[in-house]
């Protein structure tokens, strides 16, 4: 039995799991069966995928489904295995988390039947080896995640989110459909190896790239196609949000890599410019929007947009190096992007689990109503802190490693020739640096407002720590984040077959380096050792604490906060989400959000209250989406008249149409 058969079996099992769940009805057993079964199946599939990635296995299978002349083809190669590891790791942890978190679900019958098919669809997208199966699995993934995002459909915001998501998912699928149609050509060769055997002309390839950016980019959240993401991801239950943000966006990245790096053939340099600029813009816009949020889950969703931008910068660099025939550098850039895919799936799942824990522990996720949870929910706080450090790209956790590799790849790019790249790469590097710094600010805000300070509401004051399953899932991810941060060499070596297959180069083997250092090119050029940094920081902190313990006074007195001598007893006088972001809004917001602030202070002696008003506008929505929506409404209103004609008018219209068509035919022939 090949690993592919096992993986297909796992996906099939996940697809069929809703049937017994539905038979069990509303009892808690359905929850245990769904989440317990999904944990076990995903863990098993994870083992299989990891094994074939390490062994570099390639296997194929074909099922008598789908299009009659090609069947449903599936293929397991290093790229598919790598992304399956991401999918199954995220799936296993989300299911483990949901064993506890799912208890708080008010309507489990709206979540359970769609949950495992969603997981199965993501696995099938990665495994598919013909356009038809790929698109069917892709659409199943979209529909299942839409149903999950609509689980709490009674909240009015969620129905709007679901509508926008459905529209964008349809648009993306349509773009991918056209893309595959172009690549397959008139003969209908939809199998991936047939597409690869006949590389398209450069014009077709460029068109396919554009359609892939639209199709995969809209699912991944590339600006300006990201608008649905911060609406839909927070609407779902938290374990599903974690899957949508941490895993489904990665499946979209997989689609981009599979089409652009594998199917289309040799890239042109200007492709890289387009992808780089899109990635840089996505990173900066995403993190700036994240900083302005009050809702913890919306903040996390916008931060996903930022991280997708970082991944696409890595992919753009890999395209540039590949077009310039620099396989080693392309291997480095692609490794950086794939490592960030892996890392982001870990810490974004962790952070969404944390936000779910906050929601079930304190009953809300608006940061202005939280605060001080570090005392009531210590383990959740620790896990969220670790996730925040990791996503802010701070050593020694894993987020730093992938961003560091991306920077190292940028430093190789002056050797690229075209002028467009020479100008684009430093600009994108600056955007990436800006995004990294703003991400740290964003997560100081997220952690500080939610977990530190004094509780702002009674609910936050009486919050309770979450159950054991949720904590186990979060702490497990913390351990993985730390391990991937201090021992990144193993992950990098595991990714080597993927980059070699796609761009013909790989990073030097890291396992043989002394002290487990990672060395992207040569040691004299750059090296980083997360393990030693961790050891040094721990030792120095310990040494300092020891010295202070021996030398200094140990007396501690608890007293009210000093606060310059005038502490305010009301916890509402603490900094809020908006006041924390105000300096940054003032610096960047004028351009990005057309932010306006208005202060009204009454004249001295006047007892009217002072007013402060701040307005942010979503310029992307206003300039891009609102006109389209307006045009559609306009056209619909005009065409609406056709509904209310007399029978004679309809007959006349039919006759007119017939005559016109015949005329066209006559003139054509």
């Amino acid at each position, binding site marked *: 039995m090949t690993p592919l058969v096992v993986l297909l079996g796992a996906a099939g099992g996940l697809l069929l799991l809703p049937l017994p769940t539905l038979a069990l009805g509303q009892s808690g057993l359905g929850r245990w069966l769904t989440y317990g079964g999904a944990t076990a199946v995903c863990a098993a599939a994870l083992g299989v995928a990891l094994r074939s990635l390490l062994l570099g296995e390639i296997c194929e299978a074909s099922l008598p489904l789908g299009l009659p002349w090609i069947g449903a083809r599936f293929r397991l190669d290093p790229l598919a295995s790598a992304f399956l590891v991401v999918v199954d790791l995220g799936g296993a942890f989300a299911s483990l988390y949901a064993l506890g978190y799912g208890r708080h679900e008010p309507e489990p019958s709206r979540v359970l039947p769609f949950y495992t098919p969603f997981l199965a669809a993501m696995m099938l997208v990665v495994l598919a080896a013909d356009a038809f199966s790929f698109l069917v699995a892709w659409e199943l993934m979209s529909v299942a995640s839409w149903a999950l995002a609509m689980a709490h459909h009674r909240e009015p915001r969620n129905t709007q989110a679901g509508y926008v998501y459905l529209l964008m998912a349809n648009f993306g699928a349509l773009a991918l459909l056209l893309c595959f149609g172009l690549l397959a050509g008139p003969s209908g060769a939809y199998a991936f190896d047939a597409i690869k055997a006949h590389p398209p002309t450069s014009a077709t390839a460029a068109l396919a790239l554009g359609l892939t950016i639209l199709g995969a980019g809209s699912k991944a959240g590339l600006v300006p196609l990201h608008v649905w993401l911060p609406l839909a991801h927070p609407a779902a239950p938290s374990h599903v949000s974690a899957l949508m943000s941490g895993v489904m966006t990665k499946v979209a990245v997989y689609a981009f890599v599979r089409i652009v790096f594998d199917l289309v053939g040799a890239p042109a340099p200007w492709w890289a410019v387009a992808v780089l600029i899109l990635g840089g813009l996505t990173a900066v816009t995403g993190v700036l929007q994240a900083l302005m949020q009050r809702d913890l889950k919306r903040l996390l969703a916008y931060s996903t947009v930022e991280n997708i931008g970082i991944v696409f910068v890595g992919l753009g660099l890999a395209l540039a190096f590949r077009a310039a025939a620099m396989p080693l550098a392309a291997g480095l850039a692609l490794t950086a992007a794939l490592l960030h895919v892996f890392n982001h799936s870990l810490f974004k799942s962790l952070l969404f689990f944390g936000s779910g824990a906050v929601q079930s522990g304190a009953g809300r996720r608006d940061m202005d109503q939280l605060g001080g949870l570090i005392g009531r929910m210590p383990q959740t706080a620790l896990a969220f802190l670790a996730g925040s450090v990791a996503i802010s790209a701070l*050593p020694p956790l894993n987020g730093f490693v992938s961003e560091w590799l991306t920077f190292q790849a940028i430093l190789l790019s002056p050797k690229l020739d075209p002028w467009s790249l020479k100008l684009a790469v430093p600009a994108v*590097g600056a955007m990436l640096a800006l995004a990294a710094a703003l991400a740290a600010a964003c997560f100081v805000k997220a952690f*500080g407002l939610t977990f530190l*300070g004094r509780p702002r509401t009674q609910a936050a004051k009486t919050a309770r720590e979450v159950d054991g399953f949720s904590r186990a899932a979060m702490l497990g991810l913390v351990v993985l984040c730390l391990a991937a941060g201090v021992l990144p060499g193993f992950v990098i070596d595991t990714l080597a077959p993927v980059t070699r297959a796609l761009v013909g180069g790989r990073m030097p083997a890291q396992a043989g380096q002394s002290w487990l250092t990672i060395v992207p090119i040569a040691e004299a050029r750059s090296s*980083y050792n997360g393990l030693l*940094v961790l050891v040094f920081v721990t030792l120095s902190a310990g040494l300092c604490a020891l010295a202070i313990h021996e030398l*200094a006074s140990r007396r501690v007195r608890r007293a009210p906060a000093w606060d310059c001598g005038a502490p305010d007893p009301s916890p509402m006088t603490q900094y809020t989400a908006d006041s924390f972001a105000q300096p940054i809004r003032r610096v960047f917001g004028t351009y990005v959000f057309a932010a306006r602030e208005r202060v009204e202070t009454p004249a001295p002696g006047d007892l009217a209250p002072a007013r402060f008003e701040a307005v942010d506008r979503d310029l992307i929505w206003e300039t891009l989406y609102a006109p389209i929506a307006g045009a559609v409404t306009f056209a619909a209103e005009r065409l609406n008249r056709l509904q209310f004609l007399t029978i004679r008018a309809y007959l006349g219209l039919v006759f007119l149409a017939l005559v016109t068509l015949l005329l066209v035919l006559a003139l054509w022939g």
Partner: protein
Amino acid sequence: MGLIGAVAVQGGQMALVLALAPALTGLVRKVKARLVRRQGAPLLQPYRDLWRLMRKEVVLAESASWLFRAAPYLIFAGTWVAAALVPTFATGLMFSWSADLIAIMALLGAARFFLALAGMDVGASFGGIGSSREVMIASIAEPAMLMIIFSLALLAGSTQLSTVASYMLSSNVGLRVTLALALVALMMVAIAENARIPVDNPATHLELTMVHEAMVLEYSGRHLAVIELAGFLKLLLYVSLIGCVFVPWGLAPAGAPVQAHLIGIAAYVGKLALAAVLLALFETAVAKMRLFRVPAFLGAAFMMAILGALLLFVSRGGLR
């Protein structure tokens, strides 16, 4: 020499930066006082301050969590490790390969992350002011610093500080526009990062203008001592960084004899003194700017650094 020498250099550097850091701040304060015709506190006053703070009891706010008590040690550790990896008197640091310049800056970023969190922990509004302003300043200063690193790394062909320093010592550097831009930008970033005038006033007690002081407002006793020491170390780190990249003369190369190291230490102390005098002169000459002028100041540094890197991207020769 060999391994023992490398260990000695690394250990010596860690002890040296810790020992000299308070003196550097003391010298800056002394020169500033003399410039306005005050007597000024003695050079060793920062040491006495630290010792006094350590003997005092800690007054902890009732709402403070464990993070508030742990943060000083983490901040100090991050800063000390970063300072230990910047070549001060010799390039042959044993562990210089474990973190390059980007990682050193990220370590300082981690220290700042915890400082900003500590500012928010007590739940008093001044801490919030400090943290939110600090992250705003950092959000422009950090990318500027990264672009400076890009410029240096493109010239020297490496992000390793010891390699950069050796390259700067070699004869094929020459005068370059990029280096001038990077130097000016680096000095501006250093001023902002160390909360010096005109970005922030280290001696201020006027609440509305505080940034750094507002974050550490609730700290007292030994915790405050550790945070102060980390602040001294950070100033020393930036001076060492500018010294090792732009005035690397006197740095002892790896494996050099003991005399070269002694010369290196003397040169380093001289550089520190010179930097202290220049910083004091600059701080006396300019006035503190309004908070929302700071982005323009740092934005200029960012633009200069980008320009420097861009020049290297478009110029043809000389890259490694």
